[in-house]
């Protein structure tokens, strides 16, 4: 790990700070503008998910360099209520429903890898990665 940076998500403006952090790192790593926007949107959705459903948590951004491949990793963590039925939350049709946030499936679609771990009552940890092509 070369670099990790973290934003606490407590109020809505922290979402903007997390976006800014992600966009800066993406730019530094050499991602193009479209990919910058995708990464930023994914961060935004994850941070918003924390803000709306967990109350508070954190978003960390990590630069990756594995076997010569560069990438950006987002880690979104909270100690909120957790997700009872992960399969259901990740289902299609939730993404753009009700306008209440493209949410997790949307973020997943914008990134290359997406892992979610959640224990009801204990919290949720999401790790999403995008590789530089």
């Amino acid at each position, binding site marked *: 790990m070369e670099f990790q940076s973290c934003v606490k998500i407590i109020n809505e403006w922290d979402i903007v700070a997390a976006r800014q952090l992600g966009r800066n790192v993406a730019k530094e790593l050499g991602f193009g503008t479209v990919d910058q926007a995708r990464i930023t949107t994914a961060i935004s959705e994850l941070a918003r998910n924390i803000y709306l459903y967990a109350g508070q948590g954190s978003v960390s951004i990590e630069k990756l360099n594995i076997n010569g491949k560069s990438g950006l990793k987002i880690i979104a963590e909270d100690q909120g209520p957790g997700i009872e039925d992960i399969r259901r939350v990740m289902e299609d049709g939730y*993404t753009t429903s009700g306008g209440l946030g493209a949410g997790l499936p949307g973020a997943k679609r914008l990134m290359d890898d997406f892992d979610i771990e959640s224990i009801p009552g204990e919290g949720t940890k999401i790790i999403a990665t995008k590789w530089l092509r």
Partner: protein
Amino acid sequence: MDIRENMEKKYHEALSTYLKDQNEQALYQGQKISRLHIKYNISPEEIISMHKNNLMELYPELPGKVLDSFDFLLEVMMGYGIAYREHQSLRHQQQELKTEIEIAANVQHTLLETEIPDIKALEIGAISVPARQMNGDYYHFVQDENERIGVGIADVIGKGIPAALCMSMIKYAMDSLPEHRHEPNSVLESLNRVVEHNVDPSMFITMFYGLYDPHDRQFSYASAGHEPGFYYDAATGTFSDLDAKGLLLGVDKKTRYRQYEKTVNRGDMIILLSDGVTECRTNDGFIERETLIGLIRKNMHLQAQEMVNNIYKQLEKMQNFQLRDDFTLIILKSNV
């Protein structure tokens, strides 16, 4: 050159052509580009980015703010980009589900198959078409050792997969009726117990069961709340309702059914149907039972199977090829 670069190049060419001469021809190229980009999964936010790059190249002296405005547009387009990606995956899922239901419909078709008895005394026609892919109507013929012919027609309240699942039960229940007990009232009574025992209390089934004995030309029948059929009396040339009273299957396990009798004369017809036939909705509202009688009259000169086929086709057309309910029609025509 990879696909994306190729798409960028095509976009650039078509846009340049359009800017040279803003004609319809060039816009038509735009539509073709759109189709091509979608085919290669280029998402809408990439289109915005391509557009911006092209403008920068074509008009280097463009105000910086105009270029900035594209960054905002791209941000707004991200939501559409997500919806677009979801669309690709939904389409795939939908296709899979459809295939699964198609297979299930085939399985159902094999399961519910019934052979139409071939006897001289009676000409028989039967058709059953589901409104969606799976059928919640069912008909069944059986011939016993005394040449008597049993005919059952049933309709689950509801359509689609749940109804089809219910209906498979009726089929097995009928299959396992003892050979010597095909009296209509006792058939309905035993099926009623099966339904009451196995099916969710919110599911009901209507059913009509009739038994024709070629030796004395008696038709005995009973109904569990099923849509009444018609009886055609050849001697007078008139149609009447084949009324029969009885509670739906599955309401009360102690229900008893009354049995009715009719002597069938040469040329008489027994017409059995599900409510999908009478509740056929045309542009002028639901058809009347009179309309149906008219249709039967018009086709009476045909063979029983041709009759039901023709009547179905005519009713299908009258409702613009959109069945609202499963459709089942059976005609028994006496030759003796």
